[in-house]
């Protein structure tokens, strides 16, 4: 992604001066960022930087203290999560949070909750697509979600989000706890999904891999954005890499 493009189009997600706190602890201290259609934007930062908090604020899981989140021009601060999902922000949470006692098939079906009755074909079509991306899921449709391996659970979590379908996909550390081979595989799939036109906001501690697929990056440190720029720019700044990206 190039800077020109960023200037040309209106962002679909625009966050301004966002504050979130847990009791007295300020977790986000006035961060601003934007995501444009078709981009993969990465948010990088060490443990406890506030990455998960950022995504949770976007989808109404934690309350916004001040600032504004606007999605396609509408302010969505503190709306109920289900409403935000319906508007088109789909969240793949940290730790995957698939439903452990639903089968893989049920996990996928419930992801189509919003439209299953109206458009069964759309569901079947999206599910086919998910099985193409993750053939291992198809073999395991009748297995309980909780019995999947970590990698398979991540596939299910992403597959579920693709079935829900939204204009922007939020991915919280999809590489967490996976073997290096699998991390590559998952991130390659994320890239493939983006090439099909899906807008993605990716949160990662694994900065090097995230920068490989992201076009634009924000670096978060204790609740503040300390750097931003194209992946090439961030990578070229040795100082940033050393201090923040390990």
């Amino acid at each position: 992604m190039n800077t020109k493009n960023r200037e040309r189009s209106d962002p679909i997600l625009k966050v301004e001066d966002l504050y979130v706190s847990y009791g007295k602890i300020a977790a986000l201290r006035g961060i601003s960022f934007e995501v444009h259609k078709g981009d993969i934007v990465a948010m990088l930062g060490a443990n406890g930087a506030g990455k998960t908090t950022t995504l949770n604020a976007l989808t109404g899981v934690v309350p916004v203290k001040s600032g504004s989140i606007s999605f396609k021009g509408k302010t969505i601060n503190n709306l109920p999560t289900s409403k935000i999902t319906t508007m088109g922000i789909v969240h793949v949470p940290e730790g995957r949070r698939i439903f452990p006692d639903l089968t893989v098939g049920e996990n996928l079906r419930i992801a189509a909750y919003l439209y299953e009755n109206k458009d069964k074909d759309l569901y079947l079509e999206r599910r086919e697509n998910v099985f193409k991306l993750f053939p291992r899921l198809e073999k395991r449709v009748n297995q309980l979600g909780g019995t999947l391996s970590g990698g398979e659970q991540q596939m299910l979590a992403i597959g579920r989000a693709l079935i829900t379908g939204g204009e922007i996909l939020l991915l919280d550390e999809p590489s967490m706890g996976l073997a290096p081979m699998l991390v590559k595989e998952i991130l390659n799939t994320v890239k493939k999904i983006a090439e099909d036109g899906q807008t993605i906001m990716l949160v990662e501690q694994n900065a090097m891999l995230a920068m490989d697929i992201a076009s634009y990056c924000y670096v978060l440190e204790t609740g503040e954005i300390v750097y931003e720029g194209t992946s090439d720019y961030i990578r070229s700044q040795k100082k940033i890499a050393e201090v923040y990206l390990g």
Partner: protein
Amino acid sequence: MNTFVQQIINFLQLGSIYALCALSFTMVYGVARLVNFAHGSIFGVSMYVLFFASTYLFNVIESTWLVYVISLVISCIVTSLIALLLERVAYTPLRNAPKVAVVVSSVGAGMVIEYLILNIAGSKALRMPSLIPNIKFDLLGVSVPLYKFMIIIIAIITMVVLNIVIKKTKLGIAMRAVSQDRVAAGFMGIQTSKVVSASFVFGAIIAAVAASLYGTAYSIFAYDVGESIIWWSFIAAVLGGIGSINGAVLGGYIIGAISVLAPIILPVSSYKDIVAFAVLIIVLLVKPTGLLGKKGIEKI
């Protein structure tokens, strides 16, 4: 042989009623993870609505079956509305409060409903009209009243339908999803508060069906009918694994078996309570989650 068949039928009848009561009680816990101690009063409301509706309808309608069906539907509707009101008033405001606050509030709400019943309907015991035609027929040489069969059959049909709804329908899967991870359910676009409300309605409807069977089996009841029901439902549900549907059914039939067997084996019939408690305590010592309960997950 005669008494054996009779005891089996008594066990199935009683077990079915306990199973439905435990099911209705476990629904709300299964989805919302809160113990609804006001549920006994919900049961009481069903009894009274059923009583007034059927007493009135028998004046205008000939067919017993029709009266039963219509008064059951009325009872389901009224009971559901009260359960929804209860949720709105006693639970929703305490969503983020400590669990003990919810317990206090549910016990209090139950008392309020019970006193309302007492004030509206009075304290004297009532007799439920016969909701099932008074026919007897022969089973293995034993003359069995039709109502005993119907109680068993209606209970089983209710359990099967509930199972299908929970296992196969969109709402049922959504309920299980909310029960397992409410936040993640929101990410699927599920309006979790509506699904929780649905669990209150399910609980109320099952309670209304259970009340109609209880009324048929025992006829005499008073304003405090819900108190012992909620108690035994609670024990049956915990025994089977609170929140688990199959557990509630199993717990209900175990309590039914104890109630039928204890008086035969033991000298004093009230020992039944002691036996039931002993069984409950032993099960919880061996398996703290109850017979079919799983730890932390799958609550419905």
